[in-house]
C-alpha cells in the first residue's frame, strides 16, 4: 500500500475545529462514531481502500474525531464510496460508517461541494420521476417489446423534493 505523504505532516492544533465531532455525532445515525476504537476492520474490508488507499474509512473517522473539518469536508475521496456496506457489516462496534459518511457528504453539500452527477440526477427526477432521461426512441423500443409506456411526469417528486431544500442546492449550481 502506498503511503500518503501528507499524512506525515504534523497536525496543528490551532487548525482543528473541536466542535466538528459534536456537530457530526449530534445526528442520531452518526452518534455511534463515539464507539469507534479505530480497529480498522472497516478499511480492511473496503473494496475502495484496496484500490485507492487515499480513501480510508478508519482515517476519516479519526479525522472527524480530531476536528479536521476542512480536510474531511473538502476531501474528494469522501465521494468515492460505492455504498457496498461492507464497513457496516463487519464493524465490531456497530459504528455504521456508511451513515457517518452520508452525514459528512450532506454537510459538504451545504458548504457548496455537491458533485455534478448527483445534482444532475436529482434535476432529472424532478422532470420525469426517474434519474435516466427518456426519449421517443425509448418509447418506441418499449412498445416494440409490448412493455407499458412510462408515464411519470415527476410533478409529485418535485413537490416533495422542494420540501427538503434540495432544489436550492441544484439551483445554486454549487458544483465542485
Amino acid at each position, binding site marked *: 500500500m502506498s503511503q500518503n505523504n501528507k499524512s506525515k505532516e504534523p497536525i496543528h492544533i490551532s487548525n482543528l475545529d473541536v466542535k466538528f465531532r459534536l456537530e457530526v455525532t449530534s445526528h442520531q445515525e452518526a452518534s455511534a462514531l463515539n464507539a469507534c476504537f479505530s480497529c480498522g476492520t472497516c478499511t480492511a474490508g473496503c473494496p475502495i481502500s484496496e484500490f485507492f488507499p487515499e480513501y480510508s474509512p478508519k482515517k476519516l473517522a479519526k479525522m472527524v474525531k480530531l476536528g479536521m473539518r476542512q480536510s474531511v469536508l473538502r476531501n474528494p475521496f469522501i465521494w468515492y*464510496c460505492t*455504498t457496498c456496506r461492507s464497513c457496516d457489516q463487519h464493524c465490531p462496534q456497530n459504528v455504521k460508517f456508511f451513515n457517518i459518511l452520508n452525514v459528512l457528504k450532506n454537510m459538504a453539500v451545504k458548504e457548496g461541494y455537491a458533485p455534478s452527477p448527483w445534482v444532475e440526477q436529482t434535476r432529472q427526477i424532478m422532470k420525469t420521476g426517474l*434519474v435516466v432521461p427518456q426519449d421517443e426512441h425509448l418509447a418506441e423500443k418499449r412498445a416494440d417489446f409490448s412493455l407499458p409506456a*412510462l408515464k411519470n411526469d415527476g410533478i409529485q*417528486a418535485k413537490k416533495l423534493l422542494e420540501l*427538503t431544500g434540495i432544489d436550492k442546492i441544484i439551483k445554486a449550481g454549487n458544483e465542485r
Partner: protein
Amino acid sequence: MSGRITPYALFLGCTTPTQVIQYELSSRWVCEQLGIELVDINDFVCCGINQINLSREAGLLLAAMNLAQAERKGLDILTLCAACTGALAEAIEQLKDQATRTRVNRKLQAIGLEYTGGIRVKHISRVLYEDVGLDSIEQKVQRDLSKLQVAPHYGCHYLMPESAFDGFDDPDNPKTLHQLISATGACPVQYETLNLCCGGKSFPISRELAFSLIQTKLDNLTHKKIDTLVVQCQTCYLMYEDQQKVINRHYRKDYSVPVLLFPQLLGLALGGDPKKDLGLHLNGIALHNLLFKAGLHARL
C-alpha cells in the same frame, strides 16, 4: 410452496425500464410463467438511493413516497434492482421510528400520501425463492442447462444492510442465488471474488475506480472458465457487461465474459423464446456458446 402467490406492485426503478429492458422483459415473462401477478404503478419514482448523497431527508422521502403508493394499493413491492431493494427495505426500517414517520408523513401530506407501515419489499429473486420455491421451479424446467457453469453475483444491496432483510440469506456467505441457479438445472460455480462490489455507485464519480473493481472480478471469472456470470441487478449488469466492452477498448483487453440477468437464465430453463420472451439479443457479449450448450442453435 402451494397455493396462490399474493400479487406484487412491480418496482422497475430508473435504469431497468430505460437502459436494460431485457431485465424487465424477462422478469415479467418468468413471473407470468410462475404465477406471480405483477401490478404496474405509474406513480412510482426513483427509490432515492443516490439522493442520500446530497440530502438524507430527500432520499428517505422518495423511498417513503414509493412505499406509500404501494400501501395505498394494498400491495407489497417486488423490485428488480438490488439498490432499490436495499434503499426501500432500509426506509421501511427507518420509518418504524414513530418520530421519523410523523416527520416524513407531514411532508408526504403535501402530495396527498401517507405511509403507515406494514408493507414489505422483496427482490424478484427472493420472491422466486420464498413464494414460488425451489421445488416448484425445478418441476417447471423444460430445457436442459446442466452443461452450463454459472458464476453468481448477488449485488451488495440485495442483502445489506443485513438488519433490513430479517434473516434472509447471509451477506458474508450467501447461498440463495446459488440454489436458484441449481434449480434451473445449471451448475453454480464458487469463486474467490464472489462478494466483490460492481462499483456501480462509484462509477459516476470515478470511472477508474469502477474499472479496477470490474477487472478484478473479470480476471477471476476468465481464469475460472465459466459459461456466464449471472447478476440480479441492472446496475451490476451494466458494470460487468457494458463496461466490460469499454474496458476492452480503453485498456486493449479481450475480456469476453457473458453476463445474464437471472430471469434470463431462468427463462431459458422454463423454455422461453430467447429473443421475444427474454431479450437475449439485447445482451452485448456473445452468447452463442452458452446457447449451444443449452441445446439452442438459434441465431440471436
